[in-house]
């Protein structure tokens, strides 16, 4: 379903993704694990046509992602790591725009919006502006929106960051249901190893832009001679702490600039 070959992305001096290759089968739940700044988000951006690779190829459902961008976009849904809601609109309006852009018929889109807002406990705030939402509520809305249409592939970039255990459980239960009932292929990244262990059928570990290991959770544990996926992860990527993703810093800088200018 996803076929990546020799994918490279460099930003000037920074080599964010260095020659990675992997395949994700149809109907599979595939976890992409790695420390901060490993290159997970950059990879997802290239898989989802937001970023052109420096070199290498991405095939989504048999289509070259750099040539058939529009066709490729019809095949996936995504929950971004960074905010992507319109603050000036209500929760319901954000859902509605999404549904319209993805061609979900009006009636179905309203039904599903109601169902998902209920599922992620936003139903009583459906007509509030997103700018009045807390971080957790925004996150829940991003997830609800990402699940509004049923794509062939679902990308989830650290979807559970900053969520309480109840919501995390809710999300993964729903994702597993989609995977089993609708055969949705899932590509996810997370920092919570027990989540990856629970839902993912196959795992790739990426560090410094390179894939250092691939396999099932059991295989990774066996390879590193460890008991838990967390230990296996540390064995593979070392235990030194990585700097906070540069992305966060860049956003902060941009915000600061923005306010100074206005």
């Amino acid at each position, binding site marked *: 379903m996803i076929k990546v070959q020799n994918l490279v992305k460099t930003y000037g001096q920074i080599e964010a993704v260095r020659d990675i290759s992997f395949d994700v089968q149809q109907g599979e739940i595939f976890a992409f694990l790695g420390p901060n700044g490993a290159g997970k988000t950059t990879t997802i951006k290239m898989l989802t*046509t*937001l*970023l052109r690779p420096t070199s290498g190829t991405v095939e989504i459902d048999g289509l070259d992602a750099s040539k058939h961008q529009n066709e490729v*976009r019809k*095949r996936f849904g995504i929950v971004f790591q960074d905010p992507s*809601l*319109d603050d000036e609109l209500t929760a319901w309006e954000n859902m509605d725009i999404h549904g319209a852009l993805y061609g979900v018929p009006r009636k179905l889109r309203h039904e599903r919006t109601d169902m998902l807002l209920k599922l992620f406990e936003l139903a009583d705030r459906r007509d509030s502006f997103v700018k009045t939402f807390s971080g957790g509520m925004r996150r829940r809305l991003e997830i609800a929106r990402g699940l509004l249409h049923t794509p062939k592939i679902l990308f989830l970039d650290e979807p559970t960051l900053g969520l309480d255990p109840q919501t995390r459980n809710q999300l993964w239960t729903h994702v597993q249901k989609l995977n089993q009932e609708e055969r949705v292929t899932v590509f996810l990244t997370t920092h919570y190893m027990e989540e990856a262990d629970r839902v993912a059928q196959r795992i790739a570990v990426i560090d410094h832009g390179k894939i250092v290991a691939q396999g099932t959770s059991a295989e990774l544990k066996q390879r590193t001679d460890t008991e838990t996926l967390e230990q296996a992860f540390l064995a593979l990527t070392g235990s030194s702490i990585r700097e906070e993703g540069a992305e966060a810093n860049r956003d902060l800088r941009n915000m600061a*600039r*923005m306010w100074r200018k206005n």
Partner: protein
Amino acid sequence: MTTIYILWLRQLKRYVRSRTRIVASLGQPLLYLLGLGFGFSPVFEKAGQGSYIQFLAPGVIAMTVLFSSIFSGIELIFDRQFGFLKEMLVAPVPRLLIMVGRTLGGATVSIIQGLMVTVVCVIAGFRPSLSSLPAALLFLALIAIVFTAMGTAIASVLSDFQGFQLVMNFLVMPIFFLSGALFPLKNLPKAMEILATLDPLSYGVDGLRSVLIGASHFGVATDFAVLSVLSVVFMAIGAKLFSRIQL
């Protein structure tokens, strides 16, 4: 079609909800109208040019549409910063349609602003011919489309607000001052005349003036033709640059 409509509607909703923007954007035209209008009126009339308020009002209306449109286009940078741009760019619809919807929404907002300022001008003593309103609306729309598309094109290549001040000072303000919004284009120094001829807004101001008060420099047909062509050109450039955005 749904794509264009839904993004058009989004721009309109955002506008209607930002009361400060509505009020603030009326302040500047009012200042020009009252300050310049009444200040220069005696000189202008003594020079045998007729009423300055009559002359200035179409210029101030065009200015409103110019600023509002550029801002609507540049607002794309907000979408980038706040992240909504990602949501638009992964949507399974041609980016061209997204750009068109956004631009038409921004242009509609500008037209509304232009109409509100027209009312303010009338209150201040401006007397346009009423039968000219449909034609004036057409010119407002053309100016709005040209400059919203221009703003979108610019915002597509800027990733933050750093370049914004540059754009304002070296592009938008000159477009305004050289357009003949404030003074007649007759008998200008040669260099100025050439610049004014190259300035898209000149044709907008002139078009409005010709339909609202019956005075024209280029001729209303020329104004209409030039603006129509520029609308298409800037929409095409904007769409091209928008489609190329990477995050």
